């Protein structure tokens, strides 16, 4: 049995319409998502994220390459029965109430009526809509998003595709969703998450891919993305000429820049850093802290998409 939930090989998608310019939405995208992990897909608007998700759900046909979900083609309805999806823009018809909406979504995935009778109240409880008696048309954006999450889970899927799941939710709602995602991973489900909220992706994902202009720009774990830059931030109690001279004497060709009482220093190696610290203690000056400087996922992402790849 394969340990891969999703496998994408050299996937490409070109949109062409009569009398319109041909648009290449994806080119040569390859990625693998392990079972039971949370996979984050990030990229600018128009980077091809939604196109990729649509192809993984059999909604769009690839122009080149292949995609497999749980070892089968996503065009096969039996594969899609094992998958849940929350689209970015969801339109809920006015006439539904939460329960009959979930019932219909479940029926489309072949879920047995008796199973649904048991599962729907649990799901509504899980997404915080158990007490809602309103028709769907009276739902706020946040409530609709919660209902969207419930419908994605109604068939007890092995793989979940979530396109901006926290869109429209308040900070508390976003935390609920994050907790839910972690809980779903604990249950062994695979989650394919597409979000613009990079801080959230960083918090929950096991692996992240940055999509830029239709191709994979970088793929790594959040730790790899946000690992040290080689730069250190050294805070001292006070800076005077003696301290500046001590630093200048040790720094040599290495970058060293003062920002009030903090020194941004990129040592050549660890011994170089230690010699600087020894020299500072010898001045003497009180060293308050020494921290390696890390990039946030957002900083890393911005550098990648602006072409200043770290």
């Amino acid at each position, binding site marked *: 049995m394969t340990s891969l939930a999703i496998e994408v090989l050299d996937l490409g998608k070109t949109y062409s319409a009569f009398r319109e310019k041909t648009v290449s939405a994806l080119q040569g995208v390859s990625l693998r998502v392990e079972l039971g992990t949370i996979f984050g897909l990030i990229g600018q608007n128009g980077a091809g994220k939604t196109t990729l998700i649509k192809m993984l759900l059999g909604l769009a046909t690839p122009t080149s390459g292949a995609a497999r979900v749980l070892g089968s083609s996503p065009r096969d309805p039996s594969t899609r029965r094992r998958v849940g999806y929350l689209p970015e823009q969801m*339109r809920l018809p006015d006439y539904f109430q939460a329960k009959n909406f979930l019932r219909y979504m479940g029926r*489309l995935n072949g879920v047995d009526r008796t199973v649904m009778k048991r599962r729907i109240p649990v799901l509504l409880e899980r997404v915080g809509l158990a007490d809602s008696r309103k028709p769907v048309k009276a739902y706020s954006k946040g409530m609709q998003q919660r209902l969207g999450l419930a419908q994605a889970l109604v068939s007890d899927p092995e793989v979940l595709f979530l396109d901006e799941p926290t869109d429209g939710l308040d900070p508390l709602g976003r935390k609920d969703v994050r907790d839910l995602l972690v809980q779903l991973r604990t249950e062994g489900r695979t989650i394919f998450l597409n979000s613009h909220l990079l801080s959230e992706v960083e918090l929950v994902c096991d692996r992240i891919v940055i999509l830029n202009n239709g191709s994979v720009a970088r793929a790594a774990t959040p730790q790899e993305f946000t690992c040290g830059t080689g730069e250190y931030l050294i805070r001292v109690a006070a800076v005077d000429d003696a301290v500046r001279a001590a630093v200048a004497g040790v720094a040599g060709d290495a970058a060293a820049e003062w920002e009030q009482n903090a020194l941004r220093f990129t040592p050549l190696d660890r011994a170089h850093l230690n010699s600087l610290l020894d020299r500072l203690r010898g001045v003497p000056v009180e060293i308050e802290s020494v921290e390696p400087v890390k990039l946030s996922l957002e900083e890393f992402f911005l550098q990648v998409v602006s072409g200043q790849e770290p």
Partner: protein
Amino acid sequence: MFATYLNSLHESMSRRVALVLFGVAILIAIMFNVVVHVRTLPDGATMLAVGAQPPAPSAIAVPSMLESILRATGSLWMLLAIFAAAPLLTATLEKGWLELVFSKGTARWSIFLGRYLAGLTLYSLMFAVAMLPVALRLWWMTGIGTWQMGVALLIQTFGFAALLAVAALVTLPQKGVALPVIAAAAIWLLTPSLAMRQETFYRIFSSHFVRGIIDWAYRILPKCSELEDLCVSFVQGRTVTSWWPVWSTGAFTLIVLGLTLSLLNRKSF
């Protein structure tokens, strides 16, 4: 498919157009029942009168009355019902909804066919609400069987199926509800003229080539007006001499619907 079918019926009942049309159907049913009077003579024979017209023996008047009902409203229902049924098809392909339903474990064709069948049911129900009460009343009060109206309902639904298949095909480019309604209405308007092409188009076009094209258009397109004539023959108790409108309309519907479902299955959203 059955889940989608039931959901589509539920959806159609929440749409104003369908509710208005059902209201109109009920009004028509009431109107027919009000204007038709059945009188029983001392010898037990029954006489039928429509409004202020002199009464006629039921054996003659009942088929004549059914024909009038069919001529007055039967075909018009097709046009009106398109306004209620076409949105069921276009709503399936609305952004935000299609991603939800087509990403589920049911084939696209099955979902769309469920919607299509719900559209047909909607038409049949409207037709039944408008026509069947008076037919049943006449049967009950005169003893003259009016079951032919049931067959007429099936034949008319068959004609509507062809129009709805055209609307379904035109739904695929996802350009809203207007285009499918216009396409189906155009076919509905064109078919009587094509059926009488010798009196209509042939008078305008003398070219053999153009007449040939018109002739082929007649052969290919559904024959709604001839299906109505067939219904009338049926309720009048006359022999149906040609089943050509039925099977050619059936072939058209199957081909157009098959093409629609096949294109939908291959469509990239």
